[in-house]
């Protein structure tokens, strides 16, 4: 292994960066639960009304951001070799495609054969 690749693979963040990421993850999780509670209780009404139409999108966005933070900093994909990123991201794309395909196919199936109520 050449020295540059070696250094590149191992220049991991400092504990201070790890702690900052940890706090960010905690705050984002608290935000997710707060959004859920606002939607469930309908309080405050104005905020609940604004959140409800984009609730799912907001939660998925927050979840994706948390996922990326852990993968980039805690799993060191930001610092490590790009080969590791490739062997993770390629199956991740397939994984997303699996979920989308299942949703589309079953959505079509249910439109043809509605389930009994």
């Amino acid at each position, binding site marked *: *292994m*050449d020295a540059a*690749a*070696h250094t590149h*693979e*191992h*220049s*991991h963040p*400092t*504990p201070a960066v*790890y*702690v900052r*990421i*940890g706090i960010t*993850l*905690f705050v984002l*999780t608290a935000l*997710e*639960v707060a*959004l*859920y509670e606002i939607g469930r209780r309908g309080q405050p009404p104005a905020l609940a009304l604004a959140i409800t139409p984009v*609730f*799912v999108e907001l*939660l*998925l966005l*927050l*979840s994706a951001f*948390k*996922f990326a933070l*852990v*993968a980039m900093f*805690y*799993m060191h994909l930001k610092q490590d*070799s790009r*080969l*590791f990123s490739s*062997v*993770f991201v*390629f*199956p*991740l794309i*397939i*994984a*997303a495609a*699996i*979920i989308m*395909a*299942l*949703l589309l196919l*079953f*959505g079509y199936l*249910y439109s043809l054969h509605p*389930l*009994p*109520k």
Partner: protein
Amino acid sequence: MSHAAVAAHPETATGLDSRKLAIWTFIGSECMFFASLIGTYLVYKGKDVAGPRPHDVWLLNGKEVEQMLEIPLVTTGTALLLFSSLFVVLALYGAQKGKRGMLIGWLGATLFCGIFFVGMQVFEFTHFYHRGMGFTTNLFSQTFFTLTGFHGGHVSLGVLWLSTVFVLALRGKLPPEKSLNLEIAALYWHFVDVVWIVIFPVVYLIH
């Protein structure tokens, strides 16, 4: 980082440690496995002929007592699982720098969080069972228990794996040049964490 802190490995075609490449490949395959479980949960969500459904409210003497899903308890478990990811990278930092106290302390904290999470799931499953929701009750129960059960199994496996590394650290058999042993276990642990980052909103929060 000092050179001593870098784990040595045999010469490889990629220039990377094969063990680390192997765990990343395994994690990639696990992503597709969990995607199929999450996809299955989503396609059957709300398609139950009979309850209970995830956001139904339990009734006691005709009075609403609580939601079926225990959001406060699961949120606590989620927070601890997220913190365990922080603790394990701090333990890895300690291992790479040869700081034994840091390694053992943070790894112990990681194990505590992992065990709490598994305990939380056992409690939740038992609670559902006593409330009349078994594995075959309806589509929700089957997909819920399968998805969260497989994740819980992975967390349990991670706890066992980290425990073996913890014992090695206690015996002083995890010097900086062998820190890759912890790094690989930590990668698996982080993967278990990112899967939960997806499962938590999909199963518990979105309704």
